């Protein structure tokens, strides 16, 4: 625990130009501290803000200077208060000097830890580096940075700079400053263990700071055997590993509330009982493993299993090189490992570097057989792909992906797209619309930050969980918080992208037609969302929000048509279609019946047309056709034939077979209603 203790100082720029993203910074910082509270509660954290009106730090008292830098929280073991501190960052008024802040942060770390926890001291700077830093008393700014970097290296400190660049307009003067600052910050990454990342959106700001610090452990150290006579010393780490949802414990409320020391935990107990005699518990030593083989279950003792178990030697062997195109991307099976040369072995670094560079050049990959540990009961076949480093202080390495064995593949045959009938093939215009969509709905536009880059995309579920955890720690009954805006950009299309590409999307929609398969029963229709009201606004509200929408259940007098449309397209129950149709029919009959010298006819016609449209969409032609016949009969009986004439003059026809498959009316009979009074339906 304490062995891996980390000392961290957060340096946060709170000057006016940062105010817009402070909420995100507060979120990401509190997430970081919350995760520490859960996973590494011995870590110590300090918080420094700069760009504040006031000044409060040791250095200003000791040597003067360092204005507008405030130590909000001296380094201390993480606790709940720290979360509150980072959630209430002050809004600064001055321009921040990040170099001063770095010095203050280093000072805090050195004073607190001196020579201990070497390599576990970290400074995390979040700034937009928009303001110029002050000139030092002696030498140049560069010299100053070099000195600082050396000091950091001596004390075993790491620095991480997150530079936020919103897409606001800047004048050229500012550009110069930014350029200079970037150059200065880059010196750190050359001289010491430092990393600088630039982010442009608030979403990637949330993902830019690593909130969970897992100490990397090698899964293999040893030889990469190119042949039995030629071996390269390598270390293998995990490159990706899924950060799990915290494994919560099961809660028992059985303990009396007075018991202060109750653990509330629940233990699990497994008992194995004989199938015949349920009361008989079989002790573990009397159990034997059985494997199914057809109808039989074959008992195999662990001794037998041990005796014949496949037990390869620990080794990593090269099987050969092959063209990169022979290994397709979708064969990658698992999380990814990384092969680096033994960091102390210069020759190994060169050997890997030569291989990586040549493989990249030739577009080759290497196939390996790996047994990571002695005693491991299986082998792994995988592919090495070169990762040529662009920085001269980072060595070349390889990524390793596990490939499937013959048994892991299920080969299904799928129809070839080219052999599908022409009706399922897109035509030239449709293809063009699709091309445009694929080009224009661009997440990695030239000259701008690639959005949703996995490296900068936070896990929305975990963000939400920790947010809720914090809320609950204050109010146990707190409701699950909604997903906030920056996180919604991960789960939903970016509104900005959608609105700038409205034309392209509209065109795409126009070119393709979707309809429900009329052969299906209504109860199974569920996939097609209400396309009649598929505007962009509706699209971007997701289900969570849409539950609060007003539900239309009856037809109003003035808004009958729109109410009917809303009702018939409700998808929460299949009954709404018939309910809507029924209500509409009554409405029309009412209108016709209560009409005085045809004053309601236009209104009734409007409703009738809406009903017809609805019935075509929902593929309910009979409902409409029968009703039309009915109203015709009804009008003739009730001396309202003027309405029939009105309808005939307005060209209201039956729904025909071409419009809806279930209809029994042929195209030529569509108008038959007003020719002969009794149509065949």
């Amino acid at each position, binding site marked *: 625990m304490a062995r891996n203790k980390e000392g961290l100082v957060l340096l946060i720029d709170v000057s006016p130009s940062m105010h817009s993203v402070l909420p995100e910074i507060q979120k990401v910082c509190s997430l970081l501290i*919350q995760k520490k509270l859960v996973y590494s509660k011995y870590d110590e954290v300090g918080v420094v803000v700069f760009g504040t009106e006031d000044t409060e730090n040791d250095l200003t008292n000791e040597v003067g200077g360092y204005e507008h830098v405030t130590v909000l929280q001296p380094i201390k073991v993480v606790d*709940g208060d720290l979360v509150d501190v980072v959630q209430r960052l002050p809004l600064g008024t001055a321009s921040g000097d990040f170099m001063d802040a770095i010095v203050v942060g280093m000072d805090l770390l050195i004073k607190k830890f001196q020579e201990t926890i070497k390599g576990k001291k970290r400074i995390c700077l979040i700034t937009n580096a928009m303001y110029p830093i002050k000139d030092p008393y002696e030498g140049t700014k560069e010299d100053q940075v070099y000195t600082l970097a050396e000091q950091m*290296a001596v004390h075993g400190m790491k620095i991480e700079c997150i530079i936020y660049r919103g897409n606001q307009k800047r004048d050229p003067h500012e550009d110069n400053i930014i350029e200079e600052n970037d150059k200065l910050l880059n010196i750190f990454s*050359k001289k010491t263990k430092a990393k600088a990342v630039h982010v442009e959106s608030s979403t990637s700001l949330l993902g830019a700071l*690593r909130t969970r610090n897992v100490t*990397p452990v090698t899964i293999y150290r040893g030889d990469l055997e190119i042949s039995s006579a030629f*071996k390269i010393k390598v270390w293998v780490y995990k490159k990706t*590993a*899924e950060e799990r949802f915290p494994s919560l414990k*099961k*809660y*028992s409320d059985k*303990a009396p509330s007075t018991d202060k020391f109750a653990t509330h935990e629940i233990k699990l*107990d497994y*008992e194995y009982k004989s*199938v015949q005699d349920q009361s008989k518990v079989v002790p573990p030593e009397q159990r*034997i493993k*059985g*494997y*199914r*083989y057809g*109808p*039989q*279950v074959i008992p195999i003792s662990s001794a*037998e*299993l041990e005796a014949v178990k*496949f037990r390869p030697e620990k080794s990593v062997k090269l099987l050969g090189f092959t063209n990169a195109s022979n290994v*397709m991307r*979708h064969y*990658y099976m698992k999380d990814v490992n*990384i092969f*680096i040369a033994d960091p102390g072995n210069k020759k190994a*670094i*060169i*050997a890997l570097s030569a291989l990586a560079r*040549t493989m990249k050049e030739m577009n080759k990959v290497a196939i390996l*057989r790996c047994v990571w540990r002695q005693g491991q009961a299986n082998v792994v076949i995988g592919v090495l792909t070169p990762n040529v480093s662009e920085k001269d202080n980072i060595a070349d390495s390889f*990524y390793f992906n596990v490939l499937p064995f013959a*048994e892991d593949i*299920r080969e*299904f045959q799928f129809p*070839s*797209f*080219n052999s*599908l*009938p022409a009706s*399922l093939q897109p035509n030239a215009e449709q293809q063009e619309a*699709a091309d445009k969509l*694929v080009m224009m709905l661009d*997440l*990695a536009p030239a000259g701008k930050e690639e959005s*949703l880059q*996995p490296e900068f995309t936070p896990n929305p579920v975990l963000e939400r969980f920790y947010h*809720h955890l914090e809320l609950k720690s204050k109010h146990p009954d707190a409701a*699950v918080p909604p997903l906030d805006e920056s996180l919604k950009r991960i789960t939903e299309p970016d509104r900005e992208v959608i609105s700038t590409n409205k034309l392209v999307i*509209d065109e795409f929609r126009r070119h*393709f037609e979707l*309809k429900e398969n009329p052969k299906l029963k209504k109860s199974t229709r569920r996939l*097609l969302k209400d*396309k009649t009201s598929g505007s962009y606004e509706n699209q971007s509200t997701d289900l969570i929000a849409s539950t609060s929408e007003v539900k239309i259940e009856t037809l109003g007098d003035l808004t009958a048509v729109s109410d009917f449309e809303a009702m018939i397209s409700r998808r929460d129950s299949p009954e709404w279609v018939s309910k809507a149709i029924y209500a509409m029919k009554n409405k029309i009959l009412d209108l016709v019946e209560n009409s005085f010298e045809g004053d309601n006819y236009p209104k009734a016609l409007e409703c009738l047309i809406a009903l017809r449209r609805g019935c075509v969409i929902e593929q309910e032609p009979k409902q409409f056709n029968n009703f039309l016949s009915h109203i015709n009969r009804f009008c003739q009986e009730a001396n309202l034939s003027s309405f029939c004439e009105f309808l005939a003059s307005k060209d209201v026809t039956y729904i025909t077979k071409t419009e809806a498959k279930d209809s029994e009316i042929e195209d030529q009979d569509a108008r038959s209603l007003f020719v002969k009074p009794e149509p065949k339906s």
Partner: protein
Amino acid sequence: MQGVHGYRLRSDAVFRLELTPTTSSPLAIDISESTEMRIQRLISENPVIIFSRSGCCMCHVMKRLFSSLGVHPTVIELEEDEIDALSESQNDGGGEEETVAPAVFIGGARVGGLEGLVGLHLSGHLVPRLVEVGVLAFCQSLIPRPLGLMDMDPDDVFRDDEDDNENDLYQDRQSGKELVVFLVDASPKMFNITCPGEDQENASHFHVAVSCIAQSIKVQIINRPYDEVAICFFNTREKKNLQDLNGVYVFNVAEREYLDGLTARFIKEFDSVEESFSKVIGSEYGIVPGSRDNSLYNAIWVAQALLRKGSAKTADKRILLFTNEDDPFGRIKGVTKLDMTRTTLQRAKDAQDLGITIELLPLSSPNEEFNVSSFYADLIGLDGDELAQFMPLAGERLEDMNKQLRKRMFKKRKVRRISFLIAGGLSIELNTYALIRPTVPGKVTWLDSVTNLPLKSERSFICADTGAIVKEPVKRFQTYKNEDIIFTLDELSEIKRVSTGHLRLLGFKPLSCLKDYHNLKPPLFVFPSDEEVMGSTCIFIALHRSMIRLKRFAVAFYGSSSRPQLVGLVAQEEIIDGGGQVEPPGMHMIYLPYSDDIRPIEELHMDASGVPVATDDQIQKAAALVKRVDLKDFSVCQFSNPALQSHYALVQAMALDEDEMPEIADETLPDEEGMTRPGIARALEEFKICVYGENYDEEEDKKGHGKAGTKRKQLTDEAVSKGAYYDWGKLADDGKLKDLTVQQLKYYLTANNLTVAGKKEALISRILTHLGK
């Protein structure tokens, strides 16, 4: 007709409700019931039931008619006094003067006697009626499903709740069992040597079919042990089937029904079926001019009768037909041909009406292509578009043919159907498939080692504070800031619901943005479907083509309930090789990591003073090596998993009681021999010298041994000196070893070159053994 068979009057007659062998417990009679009630109950309980006098010939005819349809009716033989009761229960039928017995009831309604039944059949209403009453569902209730035998793997105990969903994905969901009848054409034509196989050996189509089946059942017995299989040859000399039809031979072994779960013995004997085939079964054309025999008709009949068991709802029923004859009735002329074609098609249609799918695996040879449309298109129900999509197997080599057969033999199982929201309200329908998933040794069933009977595991929850047994708790907690923060399961699932459960398009990126390390688990394959939303396929194809042409992939959010995730959709073009599909067209859904899932390992060993980089010369030497050691035909899934194979071999050997374990070749070892070939050896040596200089081996030795060696030596020295403080013999004799610390015990072990692993007791006993005590 009534008087043909004499009534048997028995003075002591109480009841004699005999049961046919196919039925059992549901008909057990409760003595207190009256005869009428009992008959009523039987009628209502049995979808198809015949009441007859014992030994009645009409009843026999009716039974034959039913069994030809694949239905086995319940037959009750009644005594004379019971017949009266039967006639009473029929009175509501209008009271027409018809024979009372035999009488058939379908779905509780009286059909009548033989005439009534035949009338119904001739009018074409019998089969629909049988389907309607769910005769098959009835049979299913008679087959006890082996549930509750599979026990939880004890490793599951520590698994997260969250993993369960995911595991469902990996394990093929046991959505239902599969009943398969392999119908293999064994006509002499199948034995013609047609395709050149491996090792220049020529193989017949028959060999291809049989070896494919043999391979597939070996996989099936382990992965899907509940599936039931029958293998049936047609166009045979001998006959062996329940219906006693000519030209059909059902292959089987002892202690096994024709359609049954696979057994070790069955598999073993099927392996050698080819050797004894001509002797035992024999090949002979079953459809010849001048005879009315129709072996194909018979074969489908037999298969359908076998597949009678099990409900169509819970089991997939399939007939897989292997043949190389595209026109089975080609030798027949005239009306007979028409008649045979018609009846065979009708038979196939009846089978399909009962929920059986018939799949054709046509084998064609290079000089004679299998023409599906000449007969089989009608049989398997292909028309227009589907016909165009049906690809005959046209492998030129045996391996190709084998591979393609394998692809078709397994049923395509979709994981789920999802909707893909594209933009502006447009949403299409997709099916997802798991094409690549790690195969693991079958589940463990715990047995009682004394009786070898399966055990049932029971899980109980115990409150750690009170020791009380509690119900499965619905609350979870996380200790946070020294407090227990409680979450309900509803809250947890609400937290995870960040999006609707579907796939939502966010945009497109160039393929270069998808890095090699953007991976977490095997992808899902997506393929469009027009089943519910027509037009989906068209949109999908358009996007697919654009993405391939523009070299872009789609980024989407997949809101599954277990782990909602950002995914990349990579379009894959169809790849056809050797006449078969190697890669299906569609998109692969690649799960992308989040920022905290990616570890910045590269920066871990950053060296501010810069790291060495290979020189051009070194890179060139490496290039020469890469060129030399080239796996030209590497294909991703060419190796079988040695660990899995050796496990299977063990289980198989144990199942067959074989003493010897078959040797499993580890295909994954590198080609050591090839590496020593002069060209490769020279390239290796040059690269090595170029990087490491001449003294590579010495340097390695010195470094490797030197470092580890000195450290170990130091430790040993220290241990020897420290261990010398103690009088080990005396401590052991006095039983005082246990008073020492583990560290102290280890001095002795290290000094004497013993392992230091294990618990304290283990260490002590190891010392005692070493001391000889």
